[in-house]
């Protein structure tokens, strides 16, 4: 694998000219970001902050007004740069007259796959996204979650090294959403690079190695997730089966140190998502009961 | 933005390049009579109709068929002004279709004219005027059709018919029949021309008629009407007996009535 960054955006500025008067709107201003191979990078920000525009520039769908974008060292403006990218747009639509399998076949062929190799990849992707049962159905009858999974399947059909996901869980029910989260985690295990945007910050927190926060077209904060969210002067500890006596001892011990204090204590809660999954999905093996401290 | 400017420049450049090509191809196809001319373009009489015909494109023929059928229905109902209007539209749409001109003229000069001649609801004086008016309209239609199809035997033949059978003017009738035959029409136009010339008052016409009928006779077409005509002309022109055809020719079995009307 080359040493080049998976994604390298430098000083990107993108201006849209709107309406008859061609009034300028700066969607992205002097933005730089770097995604290392094997990393899961989360790009977050409010609506209209320039996330999607940045992604489109990276994918070569838009041309930057200033600055450059590269994928594994190759300029985004070149078609070749897209050989190793899989893209899942927000709320993807496909040709609704094609079946799920035909859709994958179509995208596979566009990527240069042929014959038995393509058929194997189709099958593999259908299995991966759990669409095997719906493979012969027309896409017009797919639910939002199924469309999203089909979107993922087409993004991965040609075994890309970089996967770009735009709001992958938007409008998807918790089960589907969790499945997509698990898939992203599995990409990380396999060494794929992932660039993802999402509004579900909790999920982003679960999967991302690094995040960039955008606002009004600028990058306002960027870095490894753990560093960004750590509260440096606080420490948390979760105890199991602690007796009231033990807790009293801990309090006394803390009180002995000047300047240290207990900010809060109580019973940790599970998330609503987990609760939902535990009660709606029969096979909850995947949903472990690890509690999260509030 | 660069691309948009380039696109406009390309379109202009390409457009200037294609203009002479279009004129050349258009001229070539017009010459081969593969494109329909705009009937009223020269007349400049009705831009609406021209534009309508233009917009129809290749569907002109189909629309002409529809207006033709409407004209036919109007004919069945006896609405003559409507028949004329619809046939005019039909011929405008397809000026090269001689069948339309032929039929339009026939409707006016024969059907409409006869209708008014026998129309009990119209005063006698007006009847005669309308009769003549519609016959003249038929001739007018054919003359216009002949502008687009100057060598059409069918239209010349139809013109001959109107002069012969409606106007009773043998000379223009004979002239039209002869033109029809000369332009590749059926041989019987020659005979029809001869019969018309036979009815003319002048000797010069009789000579011409005699030549025509004699040629027909010598070609083996010894129809009774040819023989009768020849006998009549031999008498009028005082042809020496040794040059006359036999009095009781051993005629070939032929129909008593030749195809007088096409």
């Amino acid at each position, binding site marked *: 694998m080359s040493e080049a960054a998976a994604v390298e955006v430098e000083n990107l500025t993108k201006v*849209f000219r709107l309406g008859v008067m061609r009034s300028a709107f700066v969607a992205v201003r002097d933005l730089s970001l770097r995604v290392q191979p094997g990393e899961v990078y989360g790009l977050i920000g409010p609506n209209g902050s320039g996330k999607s525009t940045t992604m*489109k520039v990276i994918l*070569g*769908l838009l041309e930057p007004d200033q600055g450059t974008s590269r994928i594994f060292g190759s300029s985004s403006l070149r*078609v*070749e740069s*897209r*050989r190793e990218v899989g*893209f899942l747009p927000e709320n*993807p*639509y496909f*040709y609704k007259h094609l079946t799920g399998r035909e859709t994958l076949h179509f995208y596979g*062929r*566009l*990527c240069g*796959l042929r014959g038995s190799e393509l058929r194997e990849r189709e099958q593999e992707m259908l299995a991966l996204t759990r669409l095997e049962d719906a493979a012969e159905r027309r896409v017009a009858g797919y639910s939002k979650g199924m469309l999203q999974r089909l979107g993922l399947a087409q*993004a991965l059909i*040609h*075994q*890309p*090294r970089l996967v770009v996901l735009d709001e992958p869980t938007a409008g998807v029910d918790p089960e589907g959403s969790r499945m997509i989260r698990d898939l992203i985690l*599995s990409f990380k295990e*396999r060494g794929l690079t992932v660039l993802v945007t999402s509004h579900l910050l909790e999920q982003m927190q679960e999967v991302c190695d690094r995040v960039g926060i955008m606002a009004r077209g600028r990058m306002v904060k960027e870095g490894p997730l753990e560093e960004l969210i750590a509260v440096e002067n606080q420490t948390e500890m979760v105890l199991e089966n602690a007796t009231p006596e033990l807790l009293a001892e801990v309090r006394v011990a803390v009180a002995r140190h000047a300047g240290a204090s207990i900010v809060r204590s109580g019973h940790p809660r599970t998330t609503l998502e987990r609760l939902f999954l535990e009660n709606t999905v029969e096979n909850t093996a995947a949903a472990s009961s690890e509690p999260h401290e509030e | 933005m*660069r*691309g*948009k400017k*380039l696109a406009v420049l*390309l*379109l202009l450049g*390409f457009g200037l390049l*294609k*203009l002479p*090509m*279009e004129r050349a*191809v258009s001229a070539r*196809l017009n010459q*081969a*009579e*593969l*494109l329909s001319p705009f009937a009223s*373009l020269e007349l400049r009489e009705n831009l609406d109709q021209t534009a309508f015909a*233009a*917009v129809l*494109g*290749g569907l*002109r*023929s*189909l629309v002409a*068929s529809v207006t033709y*059928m409407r004209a*036919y229905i109007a004919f069945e109902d006896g609405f003559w002004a409507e028949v004329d209007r619809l046939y005019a539209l039909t011929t405008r749409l397809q000026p*090269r*279709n001689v*069948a339309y001109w032929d039929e339009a003229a026939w409707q006016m000069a024969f059907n409409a004219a006869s209708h008014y001649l026998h129309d009990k609801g119209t005063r006698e004086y007006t009847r005669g005027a309308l009769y003549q008016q519609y016959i003249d309209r038929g001739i007018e239609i054919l003359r216009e059709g002949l502008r687009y199809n100057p060598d059409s035997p069918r239209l010349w033949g139809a013109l001959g018919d109107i002069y012969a059978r409606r106007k009773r003017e043998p000379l223009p009738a004979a002239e039209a029949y002869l033109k029809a035959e000369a332009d590749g029409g*059926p*041989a*019987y136009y020659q005979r029809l021309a001869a019969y018309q010339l036979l009815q003319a008052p002048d000797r010069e016409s009789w000579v011409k008629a005699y030549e025509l009928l004699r040629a027909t006779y010598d070609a083996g*077409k010894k129809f009774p009407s040819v023989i009768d005509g020849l006998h009549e002309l031999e008498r009028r022109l005082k042809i020496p007996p040794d040059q006359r055809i036999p009095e009781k020719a051993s005629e070939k079995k032929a*129909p008593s009535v030749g*195809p007088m009307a096409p």
Partner: protein
Amino acid sequence: MKNKAPAPQPARGGHLSRILTLAGATVTQLLRMRILVFLLVVCVLMVAFGFGFPVSSPEQKLKLLKDATFGTLQIFSLVLAVAATALLLPRDVEDRTLYTILSKPVPRVDYLLGKYLGVIFLIGAGLIILDVVLSGLVYFQQQALLQGTEAMLRSEGAPEDEILQQLAQVQRVGLTWSMHAATWAIFLKAAVVTALALLISSFASSTLFTMVSTFLVCVLGQGQELIREYLFHGSFSVTMEKVVALLLAIALPDLRLFDIVDNVIAGQSVTWGAMASITGAALLYVVGYLVVAQVVFSEKEL
């Protein structure tokens, strides 16, 4: 996860194969939109129209049948050229399907050509089927008319040469090779209109806009000869109208060049030279408009 470690993808798949893939998807999509059913219904209606009306002469009877059938061919090809193109490309943008396609290693020119060929292929295949069916109908009708005319003339005792002449006249307006040449001209016209629709949809953002503008352009394209006439035979003064007319004459194709069908129906025969002229003109238009479409589309912001 049964996947092996990801490996860099070799550069595979040529332009042609991608273009054909896109064309194939376009054809599938259009076929499944019940285009053929629509086609069949129109066909049956038109033929019923062609057969169903009483007309005065055998010639007119044949003409009506041919008018109806060629009318079907033209309407089918033009509606498909405009509607299919307008439905496909702007909808890909609206539905963002284009994102998933162009984020694959697919050059935009491949996408454009793929869509174009898909529509053209379907129009071509449809026209071939219609041409075969309708030729059969015309032949059937023509034979019936020939027999009827001959029987009638013989009963009237018309001479042999005149019978032959009359029959030749019916045959002239019957089934001829030139009819297929006319079908080819209809196809070429549809190919030009499709290229135009593609050009318009490369900068338009909605299906409706593309359809309406393409139809408008077609109407003006039909009147190109009138526009040229106005430009070159009028006075030489420069007026606003003249400038507009010049721009129209430059930008739009002369679609009337392909309207040979009228005269073919009337019995005119098409020479190889005429065929070559029309084909050359169509080729020039298609290449010209597709190049411009690609220039616009290549920098379209998605």
